[in-house]
């Protein structure tokens, strides 16, 4: 398996930071907020490799930095520090000045301007947020939501966009006759499926899923999970799956990172993390799971 995305030292803090931060926050402390300067270290020194066609899970309790990590990878928020690079793929060749001549890895994406970050994101990533209102415009038709994404990726023909949107919605089991309805008319499960359709519209090799089934009732959750699994295999996607639900991670992901207070405390094969956790916090997390 070859890596597709590589992050090192990924950090995002809110506040000035001070000398006491290092010892006062993080995985070994009780909080990610510095007791002296009140800086919050939402994500600190996170490293990860996402391989081609693998699903990588990120688990941890609320506030552990999982969603921050996704937002940094998706350039929703700027990182305070860190290094993020993507492997050369056909889809990314058209982004100007991304790769040095002959290099298999891109330059540091976090140091690039917004326009190029956006181009990388459009070509390589799709995202599904926990809250559909973050990923969708709730008052715009479902087809329109997808067309918006296609427009930003350079599509111009209205007929072609409509056809593509229809195919994606059909794939995610939204009835075609409801394509012109806005997502706010839809149930939670349907809204997540529209988000998935939108995320896949640019044929991205990477899909970021942030708590995609949280808040859905169990029967809807099962359907969405199964759909994600099918799409993963069918489209050969690399997925980053963020969830506080170890069951979801177990079903979808081969490898998992465990986060606490903004830091990665343990990483490994998912079944190993769940059955032979090494770090005290992971042991606590696994022992707390409902059977």
């Amino acid at each position, binding site marked *: 398996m070859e890596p597709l995305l590589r992050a090192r030292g990924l950090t995002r803090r809110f506040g000035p930071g001070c000398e006491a931060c290092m010892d006062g926050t993080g995985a070994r402390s009780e909080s990610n907020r510095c007791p002296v300067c009140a800086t919050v270290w939402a994500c600190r020194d996170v490293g990860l490799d996402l391989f081609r066609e*693998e699903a990588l899970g990120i688990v941890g309790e609320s506030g552990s930095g999982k969603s921050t990590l996704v937002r940094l990878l998706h350039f929703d928020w700027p990182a305070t520090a860190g290094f993020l690079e993507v492997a050369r793929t056909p889809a990314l060749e058209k982004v100007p000045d991304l790769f040095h001549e002959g290099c298999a890895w891109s330059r540091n994406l976090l140091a690039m301007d917004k326009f190029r970050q956006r181009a990388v994101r459009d070509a390589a990533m799709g995202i599904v947020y926990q809250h559909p209102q973050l990923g969708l415009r709730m008052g715009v038709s479902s087809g329109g939501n997808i067309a918006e994404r296609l427009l930003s990726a350079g599509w111009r023909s209205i007929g072609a966009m409509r056809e593509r949107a229809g195919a994606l919605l059909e794939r995610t089991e939204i009835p075609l006759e409801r394509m012109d309805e806005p997502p706010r008319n839809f149930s939670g499960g349907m809204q997540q499926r529209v988000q998935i359709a939108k995320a896949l519209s640019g044929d991205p090799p990477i899909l970021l899923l942030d708590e995609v089934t949280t808040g859905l009732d169990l*029967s809807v959750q099962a359907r969405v999970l*199964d759909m994600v699994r099918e799409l993963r295999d069918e489209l050969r996607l690399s997925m980053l799956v963020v969830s506080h639900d170890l069951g979801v991670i*177990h*079903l979808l992901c081969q490898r998992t990172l465990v986060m606490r207070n903004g830091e990665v405390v343990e990483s490994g094969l998912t079944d*190993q993390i769940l059955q032979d956790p090494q770090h*005290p916090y992971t*042991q*606590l997390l696994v022992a707390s799971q409902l059977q």
Partner: protein
Amino acid sequence: MLDVRNLSKTFHLHMQGGLSVRALEDVSFRVPRGRFLGLSGPSGAGKSTVLKCIHRTYLASGGSISFLSAAFGTVDMATAPEAQVIQLRRTEIGFVSQFLRVIPRVPTLDLVAEPLKLRQGLSPAEARGRAGEILDRLRIPRTLHSAYPATFSGGEQQRVNIARAVGWEPSLLLLDEPTASLDRESAGIVLDLLSELRDRGCTMVGVFHDPEMLSRIADETVRIGGDA
């Protein structure tokens, strides 16, 4: 094919005040290609722990687990990079546990067809056809093929698990109590299926609760724990 040397495993339980549990100590055995090695020993002796260390579900604390892979040559499963272990699990090493763990609300036939599509590259139609044959063989009635296994009996779930594991012809198959909740007749069918797989060159390591089952299939037996 598989050479386990001085394998040991200790669990450090941080929540119980740093308690250390020594589960395995200095286990060694060797399995030639196409042979079935049975693990015997009292409950709690660490038989399943051996299987899980080979599969890398558990991290070995000491020793080595050399597996001869078609793709990578000799690999130490105790220390191999995660990406390599994932690849091996996809193409060469299978594991059958006592429990079926799958995405809810996926029909049984699709669950069995999935590894055939992914690992053997069969078309969806071919995979479903082959999956149906395996389920027939294991006497899962046709009427249940389109049902979700969550509603099945323990024995039926276990047979679905076996169907998922044997269809794609792994070169090493680890079996943790594969016949535990089956009646004698069903267990006999499972053993026949496993013998055929072995005859086609699959190497197996298995834990059986029932010594009679063990003696029916194992070419050789190693005792784990206790006073050998």
